[in-house]
């Protein structure tokens, strides 16, 4: 088990290094001069040159790259060009808000998709099943940002039940979290329905029923338990979507998380913040998938890592 975790950890570090390199390449090597972009079109040649020296952009690329990796290792991604704050500090302040939003979305996603998926599987072919499958397809088709706007239009502007933007109590969390959860509900419901149909055909379910266990016990102890692994896997895989979606949902709802910081930084050409934000989200994604891999052996004792 220890060796397995170590191997996974090394692999995660490799992927993180790759991601760091991709960000470096995209930001520095792609055509266009960052110094010119940051300084703006009115800047004089001297201003641009001064900025270039300040950002270390006058150095050869390999030197920049090594320096950049060194900075990342020390968690120092430079000062924000607009916020008068270190890039890591600015991102760190907002990580919590994004985490709350994403976690709430996952919880809502599971709370909705388990009952929906189970009911659809147990009443396969019924009107309920059809409705659930339409809902799950819709969940995967309706774009996040538009759904968010429609929620604002209906629940904030027309009905005036919930606030449309900002952060505060539970009230502020409801709309963005539901917006973010819907695609997840779509995918998980479908997965749980299919999984339940498979599990219900298994011999051990028939055995459990034959020995007279209550319907509910069979369902919870035998059927549902076996659904957890694929569900956890898919949630792990969907975190990428979820974190990417958070960037957009945060923008729609003015939620002060890393995503909104990132989008603002992009329109301000604030490269240190862009780097820090992208790295933070990517690192979280890699970490979550590492945790998902490790959690398998707890969910299913048959899985042992040599």
């Amino acid at each position, binding site marked *: 088990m220890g060796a397995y975790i170590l191997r996974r950890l090394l692999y995660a570090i490799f992927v993180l290094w790759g991601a760091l390199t*991709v960000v470096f390449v995209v930001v520095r090597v792609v055509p266009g001069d960052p110094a010119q972009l940051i300084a703006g079109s009115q800047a004089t040649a001297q201003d641009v040159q001064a900025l270039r020296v300040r950002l270390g952009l006058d150095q050869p690329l390999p030197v920049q790259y090594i320096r950049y990796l060194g900075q990342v290792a020390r968690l120092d991604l430079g000062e924000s060009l607009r916020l008068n704050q270190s890039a890591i500090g600015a991102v760190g302040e907002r990580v919590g808000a994004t985490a709350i939003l994403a976690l709430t979305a996952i919880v809502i996603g599971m709370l909705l998709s388990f009952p929906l998926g189970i009911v659809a599987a147990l009443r396969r*072919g019924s009107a309920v099943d059809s409705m659930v499958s339409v809902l799950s*397809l819709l969940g995967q088709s*309706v774009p*996040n940002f538009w759904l968010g706007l429609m929620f604002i239009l209906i629940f904030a502007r027309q009905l005036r039940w919930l606030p449309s933007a900002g952060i505060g109590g539970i009230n502020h969390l409801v709309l963005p979290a539901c917006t973010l959860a819907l695609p997840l509900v779509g995918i998980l419901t479908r997965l749980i329905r299919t999984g339940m149909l498979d599990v219900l055909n298994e011999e051990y379910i028939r055995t459990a029923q034959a020995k007279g266990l209550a319907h509910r016990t069979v369902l919870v102890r035998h059927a549902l338990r076996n659904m957890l692994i694929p569900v956890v896997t898919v949630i792990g895989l969907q975190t990428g979507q979820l974190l990417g979606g958070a960037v957009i949902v945060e923008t729609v709802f003015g939620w002060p998380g890393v995503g909104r910081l990132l989008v603002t930084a992009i329109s301000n050409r604030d490269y240190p913040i862009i780097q820090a934000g992208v790295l933070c989200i990517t690192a979280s994604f890699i970490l979550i998938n590492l945790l998902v891999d490790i959690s398998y052996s707890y969910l299913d004792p048959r899985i042992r890592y040599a």
Partner: protein
Amino acid sequence: MNSQPPGVVSSPVAADVVSPVAAAQRRAPRARGIGRQVVPWAVPLVVYALIALIGPFVISYDPVTVKTSQRLKPPGTTLADGAYAWLGTDQVGRDVLAQVVRGARVSLVIGLCAVLVAGIIGTVLGIVAGYFSGALDTVIMRLADIQLAFPSILLAILIAAVLGPSIGNVIITLAFTRWVVFARVARAATLTTKEREFVTASRATGATDGRILVRHITPSIVAPFLVIATVEMGLVIIAEASLSFLGLGTSASLPSWGLVIANGRDYLNTAWWISTMPGIALSLVVLGVGVFGDRLRDALDPRLAYKR
């Protein structure tokens, strides 16, 4: 469905347990079945493509002219010049329907081009990785792993932010973020096909790698490619709209759906239709692509079929 006698309801369950013999017997009429299973579900997509291709000629759209006298008119208003605004007008008096129709073309063009570019690059890399194995395989697939570590829309935002808004750049951005899926699928299909007897036989008769790749490997990839391409089409259309919504997609002179939705954001209180209408169009198209993709996968890859 409710009219069925109770006993019939359980029959789909029994149909799941198919013996290998029965499966083989079933396979014969499948080719004919595929058409019947899939074609009706392509109708909404054909309608969408026709609207995207012909629509802009029927309903002209003028991005420049500002008619303040007819701004923010609700759907169903007859305008001063006698035109009927089916979906209302926006904050500078432009017809929303015309923008939706023009936007259909933008998302179709970007969706098709991005999927095609990503599909070709990804498939070629996947075949090369799977067929030649070795160091090349390792390099390509590790690259894919690294890229999968990024939430794809995040990578798209990053690249689009550096490249700046334009149709070409959106296509490059989305192609760059979506090639991995194609590469993985092509590699998997290549790995299984190259071990098959007919490939070994072909090699024994002196066929070159090139001939084997073209005649044997490539055909085995067509079915999974079509399924993945359909799924990716929906994702790419959403990604394009999301980028445009953030101001990172098409330039402002082309009304992409995402851009129009973003324009209407400030007018949610007074003119709900500006953001609502393009969003409905967008959702319908993605839904149509999704349903078609499901049927296509059920028909081409029965192992993954959704149990109805």
